[in-house]
């Protein structure tokens, strides 16, 4: 009766282990710790002096191992068992029970001889098996929690990647950043990102190697195609189906980000080129014309092209006298004010600047964009220039009385010129060449302050469209002798503010 009572007590104590394992497992959070709890509880419940527990994959890779009371390294035994090449028939372990954790993970628990030397009964073995089957649920749960944690970390990586885009503008840094984040999320110890180059050949864009010390050779790898390349990850433990799906998800996101990055870089390059070009063009073109030229809406005239244009030249009357009266610095300041205003007006009518020569400005209307009313624009610009210059003089005069008598003369000639880059390979100038250029210069030279001299072609093209509210209407043509022209030149004089 006493023996039966003791046996019953022992069985109750061993059954309590079922409950106790749950209580202990609730206090730990990793598979190795759960394994340690299960093994130590079983050893205590059955009085074993030696015990071994391990889990891993079907390829023989050990995920967690726990040994108590043994002296030899049990890793080889565990690997052989996991890969299926050996059972748990070691003489060191009198009871061996398989652990089935999930589709990818299995293992075993072995109990060695008891302290009392008593053999394990059939009932003992059944009870060990029952306890192990129950305990597997805790291993399964802790692995699920671990997997969930990995997913949460991976989702955090997805978010981090999106945020990191803003701070990794260069493609090279972005490649390294993406690869490192994905590798860490998947706990890979090695990873590469390869992308196709311009010739379509796969080139390694980034490489990642974990810095957590020396690793066992990576037995498991995953290769995911990207839109323009591929992502390769490797680690010692097997990738679960869910992890592979996660790699696919991250790879897709990486593909989109890399494509966006490539487009962004292309856009930036184009923008830089446009800014450079715009800076150049806006030195002699109206911003609106420069914009249309950059966008390709206006064909460039870099090669010499023969085009009808209206050439306008404006020059200050009395500037030679002024130069002798004022300091050079003041003269420069006045000229900058004046040329700035004249340029603004020229651009307002979408004229193009050819060059500045001292206090003269040479511009033209009709290239690179031709308008049906280029001659009219030129004349209207000339009238505006006179009005603006009068304003300037009123501004200057109180402080600089020498300016009070200043005025400008303007000449406009219309006809064919050649527009294009002229010069040598080292220095090119976008300019116009042709008789209207010379004629405009001669007409300007003969124009007194407040006057606009138009050649016959300009007058014929513009007269009907002018309202003469701001200038006088010429009653008749004049004839002037102009250097370089054999015959007297017919001129129409408009007077502004007369």
């Amino acid at each position: 009766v006493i023996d039966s009572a003791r046996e019953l007590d022992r069985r109750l104590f061993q059954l309590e282990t079922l409950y106790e394992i749950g209580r202990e497992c609730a206090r730990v959070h990793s598979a190795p710790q759960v394994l340690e709890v299960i093994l130590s509880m079983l050893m205590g419940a059955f009085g074993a002096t030696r015990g071994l527990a391990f889990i891993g994959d079907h390829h023989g890779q050990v995920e967690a191992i726990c040994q108590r009371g043994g002296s030899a390294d049990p890793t080889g035994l565990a690997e052989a068992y996991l890969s299926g090449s050996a059972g748990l028939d070691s003489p060191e372990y009198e009871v061996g029970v398989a652990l089935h954790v999930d589709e990818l993970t299995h293992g075993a628990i072995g109990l060695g001889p008891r302290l009392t030397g008593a053999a394990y009964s059939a009932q003992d073995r059944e009870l060990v098996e029952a306890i192990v089957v129950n305990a597997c649920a805790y291993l399964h749960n802790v692995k699920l929690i671990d997997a969930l944690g990995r997913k949460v970390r991976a989702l955090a990586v997805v978010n981090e990647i999106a945020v990191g885009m803003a701070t990794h503008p260069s493609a090279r840094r972005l490649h390294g950043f993406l690869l490192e984040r994905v590798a860490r999320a998947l706990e890979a110890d090695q990873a590469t990102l390869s992308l196709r180059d311009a010739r379509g050949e796969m080139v390694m864009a980034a490489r990642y190697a974990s810095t957590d010390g020396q690793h066992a050779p990576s037995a498991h790898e995953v290769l995911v195609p990207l839109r323009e390349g591929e992502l390769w990850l490797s680690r010692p433990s097997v990738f679960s189906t869910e992890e592979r799906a996660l790699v696919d998800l991250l790879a897709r996101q990486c593909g989109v980000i890399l494509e966006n990055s490539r487009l962004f870089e292309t856009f930036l390059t184009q923008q830089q080129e446009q800014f450079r070009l715009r800076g150049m063009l806006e030195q002699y073109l109206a911003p609106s014309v420069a914009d249309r030229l950059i966008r390709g809406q206006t064909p460039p005239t870099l090669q010499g092209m023969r085009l009808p244009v209206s050439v306008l030249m404006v020059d200050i009357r009395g500037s030679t006298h002024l130069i002798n009266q004022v300091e050079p610095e003041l003269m420069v300041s006045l000229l900058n004010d004046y040329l700035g205003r004249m340029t603004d007006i020229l651009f307002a009518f979408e004229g193009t600047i050819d060059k500045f020569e001292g206090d003269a400005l040479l511009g033209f209307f009709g290239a690179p964009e031709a308008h049906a009313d280029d001659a009219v624009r030129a004349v209207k610009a000339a009238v505006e220039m006179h009005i603006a210059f009068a304003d300037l003089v009123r501004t200057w005069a109180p402080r600089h009385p020498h300016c009070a008598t200043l005025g400008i003369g303007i000449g406009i000639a219309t006809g064919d010129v050649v527009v294009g880059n002229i010069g040598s390979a080292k220095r090119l100038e976008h300019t116009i060449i042709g008789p209207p250029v010379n004629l405009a210069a001669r007409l300007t030279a003969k124009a007194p302050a407040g006057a606009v001299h138009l050649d016959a072609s300009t007058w014929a093209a513009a007269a009907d469209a002018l309202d003469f509210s701001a200038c006088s209407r010429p009653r008749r043509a004049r004839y002037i002798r102009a250097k370089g022209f054999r015959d007297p030149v017919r001129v129409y004089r408009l007077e502004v503010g007369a």
Partner: protein
Amino acid sequence: MPHELSTRVRDVPPLVVLDLSGEVTTFAQEPLMRAYREASERGAENILLNLSAVDYLNSAGIAAIIGIISEARKADQRVLLTGLTPHYQTVFDMMGLTTYAPLFESEEAARVAVASA
């Protein structure tokens, strides 16, 4: 820390006493082994495990104590027990531990028994 086990090693010739306090569970294995090794380094031949301040002990804790008894047997040392509650006395007895680690009512009783042996 709920798992924590505190140990103290005392010389009470001819004993070396290991005072255990707290919980003797799965994670008692390491501190218990450390205390045992310290006692061994002091040349202990008779090691008394004093469990009077143990709040909780489960089968994993028993496994840890079995570990010490096994190690002591290999090293020709004797392990003695004291401070067990009646419940744990029953458990230790039923598991056959008291055969290999005799149980004493008190530290003094263990000391006298060893001294007079």
